């Protein structure tokens, strides 16, 4: 083997090795979480509240709490985010304003999530007196989801060929008609994908809800926006850090992690399926 072939051989196999290490981590991760948590998973784990000082029972209130938290956060963030994306794509004037908006969005996207939590505590909990509640947490998570939804929404709108835009205007449509009748319907699948991915992200966040919405333990399900709630990621945190009966609480924490993991994976899978089906249909 000459030197060029040898270096080619070594190079490719190094890449292979890196790939294997990456995959190994993923599988190790899944194996550890699932093997430690699967034991407690059962139907009653999903449908019962925690019992006997969180040493037994299930995670039902946390599931319900996470559901409402995510639903509210996405419901708040989606119209804001998509509107911003439409503005950026279609009315992007003047240039300096665009620059400011873009810098703001990217800054928002880069902020550590615990800082969002502190912001939520300062503004929603204390300043606006929403207290530690479902609505404070949802608003905090909505701000976290905004840059994701804006960026994916703008990307989706940009993926619509400019020819459609021109064709619509050339037929006598106004810009807003073009947006509503051509741009959004064409971009909708990709917009949805972006929203679904944000759902996965929001559902798994812990830090933003620590000080704004979540409580260690409550038997009651949320009845109003001002209720404190339990949430899956925070439940894990609570069990591991504050539990006094590690032998029974740690498995519950892992069980909760398994549920959260599969929820988020399921949501991502949904996004992938939607995208795949659209790509197959798309012909431009």
């Amino acid at each position, binding site marked *: 083997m000459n030197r060029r072939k040898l270096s080619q051989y070594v190079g490719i196999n190094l890449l292979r090795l890196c790939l294997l290490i990456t995959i190994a981590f993923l599988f190790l991760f899944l194996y550890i979480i699932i093997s430690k948590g699967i034991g407690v998973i059962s139907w009653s784990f999903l449908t019962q509240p925690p019992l006997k000082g969180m040493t037994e029972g299930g995670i039902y209130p946390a599931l319900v709490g996470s559901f409402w938290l995510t639903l509210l956060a996405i419901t708040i963030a989606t119209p804001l985010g998509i509107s911003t994306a439409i503005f950026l794509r279609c009315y992007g*004037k003047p240039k300096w304003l665009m620059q400011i908006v873009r810098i703001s969005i990217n800054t928002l996207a880069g902020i550590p999530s615990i800082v969002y939590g502190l912001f939520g505590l300062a503004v929603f909990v204390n300043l606006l007196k929403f207290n530690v509640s479902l609505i404070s947490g949802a608003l905090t998570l909505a701000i976290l989801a905004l840059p994701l939804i804006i960026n994916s929404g703008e990307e989706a709108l940009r993926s619509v*060929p400019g*020819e*459609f835009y*021109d*064709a*619509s*205007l*050339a*037929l*006598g*449509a*106004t810009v807003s*008609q073009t947006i509503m*009748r*051509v741009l959004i*319907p*064409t971009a909708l699948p990709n917009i949805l994908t972006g929203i679904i991915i944000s759902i996965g992200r929001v559902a798994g966040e812990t830090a933003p809800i620590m000080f704004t919405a979540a409580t260690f333990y409550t038997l009651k399900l949320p009845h109003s926006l001002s209720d404190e709630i339990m949430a899956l990621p925070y439940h894990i945190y609570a069990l591991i850090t504050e539990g006094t009966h590690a032998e029974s609480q740690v498995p519950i924490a892992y069980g909760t992690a398994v549920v959260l993991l599969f929820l988020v994976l399921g949501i991502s899978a949904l996004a992938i399926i939607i995208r795949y089906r659209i790509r197959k249909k*798309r*012909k*431009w």
Partner: protein
Amino acid sequence: MVDNQLQTTNLNLWFGNNHVLHDVNLGIKGKKITAIIGPSGCGKSTLLRTFNRMNDLIPEAKITGEVLLDGENVYNPKVDVTSIRTRIGMVFQKPNPFPKSIYNNVAYGLVIQKKYRKSEIQARVEESLKAAWIWEEVKDRLHESAMSLSGGQQQRLCIARALANNPEVLLLDEPTSALDPQSTAKIEELCLDLKNRVTILIVTHNIAQAGRISDYTAYMYLGELVEFGETNKVFTVPQDKRTEAYLTGVYG
């Protein structure tokens, strides 16, 4: 001058500091086919897009002079640009049907005006598809996606879509340059058929095409209108050396 359906007077256009059109004075006769030819970058597509104000979409575009449609300046601030674009239809270089059904593509221009009843729209869709010689091919699948059509069919669908608004003028921006020879021939024949109902302005890279279908030919070079006249005269006895050089293939 009055008998010209479209007239530009001292039309100048800049993109930023780039002076693209220089003092263009061009009169287009109604119900005729006028071809605009010239080498790439000479401003012929830009000129075409001034008629239906598509250059408005480019932020740094600046225009002086007038563009008259039936004697009315389309750049008059009081003029509604959407009504201009309804009266002056446009077909683009690349077939660009919407990712909607064939029917909804053709109905689009009428639906957005919100003044037609459903039965009227249906009638106009059928009439437009017939006028664009595509009715026979699509009449059984009006509700299938327009994306399922071939390139040539898509381009005729785009012509039908533009015709649905009953425009006075149809602007064709190199409509056949993305098509095969057969589809091209069909669209050329279609143009000859359509000139009974609509004034056609066609930008083309294909000199032979201009010779085959146009009544008048405008030759543009570096943003100037170098020569304009009846096609057979421009092609046989061009007045300007630059026109002659282009037509004989010295450059272009």
